[in-house]
């Protein structure tokens, strides 16, 4: 049997005495695409933040095993080098830091970690120009500061572009669809789909079903009040679309 890429068991976490995640269980195997859907305040972004190593959360119980490693014991950069990637809901503008320099540093850190030789500037540029086309981004993005002055759509596309360069084993896409018009959404989705392989996995975190028309998940989970209250196939997303969160949550509550 295949080993999971990610196994979250009974994860409880919060901030300053306020519990947000109240026992999350989730297992993701290679080649799978999972979607976590939930209303505002259900804990979606907290989960993404904890997986990526954002400071400020306190994990009170449970564990997260990533490729046989205790993920929570790793620093954010170690997680990244091990192949965890978070596409931010709000990508950060970093004035004065050149995009190519930034990406080359990131890429070479991962290569170093894997015992591969670093690419020099010329080699990297050739490699990266290839990838930039995938997201239909302009070359001049590489000359600009990281995310500085980018439109909302450009920022989101830039996240997926970085994902295309870093080729993570586990990509977590936090509300990647928010703020995208339909054309940009299609480009982003095409990018994500083309990066799907048998040995990696994607975790989509979203409020709306819209993204899932373009990136079709194998599993959909409904997150509510810090727990996964319902899991199913891609049809669950359509059910949510039709019935809305309230009804699904109500049904689960009644069953429980």
């Amino acid at each position, binding site marked *: 049997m295949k080993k999971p890429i990610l196994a979250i068991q009974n994860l409880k976490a919060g901030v300053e005495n306020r519990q947000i995640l109240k026992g999350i269980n989730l297992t993701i195997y290679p080649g799978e695409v999972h979607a976590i859907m939930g209303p505002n305040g259900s804990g979606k972004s907290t989960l993404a933040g904890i997986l*990526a*190593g*954002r*400071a400020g959360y306190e994990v009170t119980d449970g564990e997260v095993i990533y490729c046989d490693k205790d993920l929570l014991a790793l*620093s*954010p*950069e170690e*997680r*990244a*080098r091990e192949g965890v*990637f*978070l596409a*931010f809901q709000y*990508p*950060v503008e*970093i*004035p*004065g*830091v050149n995009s190519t320099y*930034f*990406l080359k*540093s*990131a*890429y070479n*850190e*991962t290569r170093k*970690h894997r015992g591969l030789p670093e690419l020099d500037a010329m080699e990297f540029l050739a490699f990266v120009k290839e990838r930039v086309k995938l997201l239909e981004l302009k070359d001049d993005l590489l000359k600009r*500061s990281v995310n500085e002055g980018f439109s909302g759509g450009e920022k989101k596309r830039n996240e997926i572009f*970085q994902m295309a360069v*870093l080729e993570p084993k586990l990509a977590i896409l936090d509300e990647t669809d928010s703020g995208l018009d339909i054309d940009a959404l299609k480009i982003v989705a095409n990018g994500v789909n083309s990066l799907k392989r048998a040995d990696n996995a994607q975790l989509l975190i979203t409020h709306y079903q819209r993204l899932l028309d373009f990136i079709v998940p194998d599993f959909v989970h409904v997150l509510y009040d810090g727990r996964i209250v319902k899991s199913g196939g891609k049809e669950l997303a359509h059910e949510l679309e039709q019935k809305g969160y309230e009804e699904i949550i109500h049904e689960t509550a009644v069953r429980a």
Partner: protein
Amino acid sequence: MNLTETEPTVREKNRQHTNEPSWLSETREQALARFVELGLPTLHDENWRFTNVAALKSFAFEPAAKPAPHGVTAEDLKPFPFAGFDGNKLVFVDGRFASELSSVSKLPNGVKVMSLADALVTETDLVKKHLFRHANIEKNAFVALNTAHFHDGAFIYLPPNAEVEGPIQLLFVSTGKTDGATVHPRNLLVAERASHFCILESYVSLGDATYFTNSVTELVAGENVSGQHLKFQDENPHAFHITNLATHFGRASQVTTHSFALGAKLSRTNIHAILAGQGLECVLNGLYLTNVSQLADHFMVVEHAQPNCASHEYFNGILAGKSKGVFHGRILVHPDAQKTDAKQTNKNLLLSDDATVDTKPQLEIYADDVKCTHGATIGQLNEKAIFYLRTRGISLEKARRILIHAFAGEIIERIGCSSVREELDRIIWDRLEKDQEIAVDK
């Protein structure tokens, strides 16, 4: 020096400068007398509130009459910035011109790049026309002291329309062998109408002694001149460094001055810019990068004396350890200087809880149709940006360095000459790489 003991110094000075013409020796005597009257500034002086120079009292302000051979070789200069640059270079060791380490060549007609002591003899009229006209001994004790005691420095003269290829380097090296010694470099830089210049003025040390550099540079830029003046200060961590840069800008000129303060225990850079012609634009650009118990003080007076001029001041400070930054920017707009556009920005990055900064903008406006803005910020590194970089595999230490470097980059990118810009960028990055303390979160 104890001020009550200055009388013997006056007599000694006369012995030391016996061959000088009377106009010069008289000025020196006036300057020394003025210094005695003014005394060293104290914390009670409004312009020196944040910077205590009391330690200078124990220094011998008079340079040694006959210094021992310095023994500095070209090899010794290799680690210093811009060492690999070809082109014109004047080197001064402990305030004295070192011709064997200098190189001057390929000068267009009429251009002078030489030691001021030589120029006082061979270019007397040119020197006399400008020297002492801009750096004021009346109000400034350190200018008075320099004027009384200076031995040498650089003289650069660009006739109308002249342009010298590549930057002209002035390198002031202190051997740093004697505690309590003082050097008084004195530079006169004159750019006539429509000429173009790029001048690098660097202050560095070889030894670790507690010495004092008290330099004065007068920079005169005529009509339609375009140019860049860059001062780079990286003296040893015990040294005291005080510079007065007095500038005079002509009509429609476009001059940028840069000040990079990295070294010294205490450094103070006074820049007095007089915008003396219409329609000119000047930029005062600066970066201070300090650690441990260093203090870096920039004190600017920008004087808008004519209409339709623009002045922009950009100063960024990066402060680690228990170091301290001071920014004092005064914009003075004369009644005639209508349509003045004056802008001042001072941004500070505090890398430790013990680092401090005092920032003081000051506007004095006597015209009614002007645009003057100033802004100061004091902050820490952006945590969100650090996290973002880390989620891409970049270590915490490197993420911090990248962000600090970017902050410095805002200043570095204003350097017009690309070779100089790249060199400064490399120096700053090397400094950040070397400084472990800077990369550690505290």
